[in-house]
Every structure is written in C-alpha cells, then in structure tokens.
C-alpha cells in the first residue's frame, strides 16, 4: 500500500499495488477530489448549455433562491439602515462634544433635532420631486424602493420592493426624475429584478435630442454606456443630450438617458460614449412605468 505523506489523513492508503501495477480503481480513488471537481464542473457546464439552449429560462431555481433570500434581505436592510442612522447620530454627538464641552448636552440635543429635521426635509423634498414628476408624466407609474443590488462586480442589476402583487410584469421601464434607470427582467410576488442601462446585456432605443439621430444604447465599461449603430456621416457632438426614442416598446419616448461625452469615427458606425443622467450607484426610490394593461390591473388592486 502507498501512503501520501502530504495528506492529513495518513491512515488511508492512496493506492493499492497489484501484481500488474496500480489499478484503474486505485487511480480514481487516489485522485478522487480531482475527478469530483471535473464532475462538478462538467455538470455546471451542462447546466449553462441548457440555459443557453432554452434562452436563459431557469426561472424556478432563481424564483426559489430569491424567495428564500427576500425576507433576510429586507430584515438585514432594515437593520443596516437603523445601524447607519445610529452611527451617524453618534458621530455628530461626538463632534459636538469635542467642539464645545460646556454646551455639550444642549448642542447634542440641537444637533440631533437639526439632523432629524434635515433628514425629514430632504426626504420630503425628494418625495415632492418624485410626486411632481409622477404627476406630470402622461402615463401611470408605481413607486418602489430599492432593497438590494445584484451580487457580482459585472452584474448591474437591483431589486425593488414591488412585484407581481403590485401589478408589475417583465419589460416595464424603471425611471426617476433625472432619467432612465433600466427595465424589469425578473418578477416575483413581492419584488422584482431591474436590469440597469449600464449592463452590457441591456439595450435601449434612443435618439439625440438635438439632431434626432437614432441608435441603440448598450452598457459599456466603468458605469458608462455606448451608443451603437450611428453612421459615421451623422453629426454628433460632445454634450448632445440622449433621450429615449420609444421604438423599443419598453421605454416611453422623450425620457432623458444621458449625455454624449466622447465621439469618434469607426469603420461604418461612430464610437460614442454616453454618461448616464442617473447616478445608478445611489438609487433609493424609483418609478415603474406601467403599460396600459398593467395600469388597469394596478387600478383594480387599488380599488380593492
């Protein structure tokens, strides 16, 4: 019998010598972890192939995972909010104590009050802006709160706290007053996954506000987007505003998307970089644009 001196389990032989040498079974037994790794990787490659053949339809697995994680995400999200608020309050208190020890208690109370009022005023202002924007839109919307982001450095997606229970469906546009955020790509009873415009797999039908030139906006690198399919002979300048064209049947026409920051000529089409008009790293509240059928469903839910 042969023992592996590097193995923590030195009591178990790694190979059995037969008169003919080392048998196949012994080789498999000796390299069991390697075979297990190959098996696991092969199985997952088959799973990936299945998804590619079925055009990304693995809804059941994702549904279970999101349903299982949803309560934890909400609870921990709430806990983080409370901790964050508590930490900020503590920091302000400490600063006030350093600045003026004599008026410490008075200053602490005043700062806490100012902070609370400031926070409330900020929230009220933000909600007023959102409400004003919502009222001036020519279509029905549902407001939703961002509850989580999608894990992974290259995964530009977020989760919102409204789902099919609120009448939402796939392919609904998600916007804020500053511009387009993305569209819903997965829907669950109490939440939905939103693919951001900066994701490489997203596509938005857009046009330039100044010239009316049309193209497709796709996610690029470093949180920027690229404008595709604009011919070299079209006039495009830095600073041009990019708005939705409405041709993709997802985003209503005329919503701001971003600003052209870089233009260059390619073989046939221009190379155009666009900076999104929305700071996608700091989303809190968003509006989901309902399609006419979804708007009726939402109205019925509201009536109940």
């Amino acid at each position, binding site marked *: 019998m042969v*023992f592996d001196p590097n193995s923590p389990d030195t009591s178990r032989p790694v190979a059995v010598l037969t008169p003919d040498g080392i048998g196949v079974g012994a080789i498999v037994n000796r390299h069991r972890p390697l075979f297990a790794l190959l098996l696991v990787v092969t199985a997952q490659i088959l799973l990936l192939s299945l998804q590619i053949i079925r055009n990304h339809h693995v809804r059941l697995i994702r549904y279970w995972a999101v349903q299982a994680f949803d309560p934890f995400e909400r609870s921990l999200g709430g806990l983080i909010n409370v901790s964050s608020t508590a930490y900020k309050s503590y920091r302000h208190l400490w600063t006030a104590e350093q600045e003026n020890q004599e008026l410490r208690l008075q200053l602490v109370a005043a700062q806490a009050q100012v902070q609370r009022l400031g926070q409330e005023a900020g929230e009220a202002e933000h909600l007023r802006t959102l409400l004003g924007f919502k009222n001036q839109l020519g279509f029905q919307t549902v407001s939703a709160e961002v509850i989580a982001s999608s894990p992974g450095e290259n995964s530009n997606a977020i989760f919102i706290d409204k789902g099919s229970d609120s009448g939402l469906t796939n392919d609904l546009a998600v916007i804020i007053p500053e511009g387009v955020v993305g569209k819903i790509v997965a829907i669950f009873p109490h939440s939905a996954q939103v693919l951001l415009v900066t994701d490489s797999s997203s596509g938005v039908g857009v046009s330039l506000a100044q010239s009316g030139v049309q193209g497709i906006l796709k996610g690029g690198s470093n949180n920027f987007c690229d404008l595709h399919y604009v011919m070299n002979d079209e006039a495009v300048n830095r600073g041009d505003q990019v708005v939705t064209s409405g041709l993709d049947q997802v985003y209503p026409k005329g919503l701001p998307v971003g600003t052209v920051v870089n233009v260059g000529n390619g073989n046939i089409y221009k190379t155009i970089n666009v900076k999104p008009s929305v700071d996608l790293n700091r989303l809190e509240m968003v509006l989901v644009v309902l399609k006419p059928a979804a708007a009726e469903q939402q109205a019925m839910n509201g009536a109940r």
Partner: protein
Amino acid sequence: MPVTTHRPIAVFKIHPAILSVAALAALLLQTLLPLKLPVARLMDFPLLILIYFALMRRDRMFGIGLGTGLGLLQDTLTHGYIGIFGIAKAITGYLAASASTRFELESLVTRTVLTGVFVLVHNLCLYGLQHVLLEAPPPFQPIATASAVMMNVALGLILFQILDRFRRPA
C-alpha cells in the same frame, strides 16, 4: 517495507451552524452592501468565506462542495447564467484546499499571499468563463481586477481574524 512520514498539519473543525451563518451573511452582505457603499462591488464576501474554510479544513472534497454551493447561490441572485460563479468557486475551493496542505497557515504573510492568489485565480476564472460562454462579455479591466484583489485581501485579513475565534482543532 513501506515508509510513512508524518508532518504535523493542523486541521480545524468549524461548527456547521457557524459555517451556515457565515455563508448566509456573506451572500446577504454581497447583495446589500453595494447599495450603501458602491466600492463594495469589488468585494466578494462568499469567496473569502470559501477561501478561509477550504484552507482551514484542508479537505479538497469539502472545498469543491462549498465552492459549488456558494457559487450557485450567488449565481441565482444575479441576472446572468447559473453556473458561472459555481464553476469559478468550485475550482478555487479545490485549489485552496490543495494548497492548504503545503503551507503554514498561521503566518500572516502566507495568508495574505494565498488570499491574493486565490482571489486573482477566481477573477481570472470568471473572466475566462464569461469570455468563452457569453455573447457580450465584460471587458478585462486590469486596474479594477488589481483593486479587487487588494481590497479582498485587506478584507480577508480582518474576516479571517474574526473567523479564527470560532474554529476548533479537529
């Protein structure tokens, strides 16, 4: 007569409940922290949990199993194909457990270097898989990759100190 040699190798046990809580917390932090701290997108909490437990248990089958489990769960919470993180983390778990028998893991320098190497291996696996399998793979960004390695190494050193408190000799 066969000759067996013994080298003192410390193998540690971690209670399954601790492992479960750590894995769940890592996945939750991975989804929630980037909302409050955009730079946290570079961090990979499930990967650090995988590296630590694979190194401590020194068991390649365990490394493969934990890597696959964590990776697939991470995959289900993204909008991409399920299996990308699963494969990358299974390979990383296997390599971490394999390397653990050859190094003295109580040394801070060893831990730092191994964590950096495995984060880099994981990210290169991800990049490779995305380029082979996806229609529109993300571009390779060396600076972002280097930042991710450094950030995860720094985070790992803190996290490993915390997790060390819960381990017991096997």
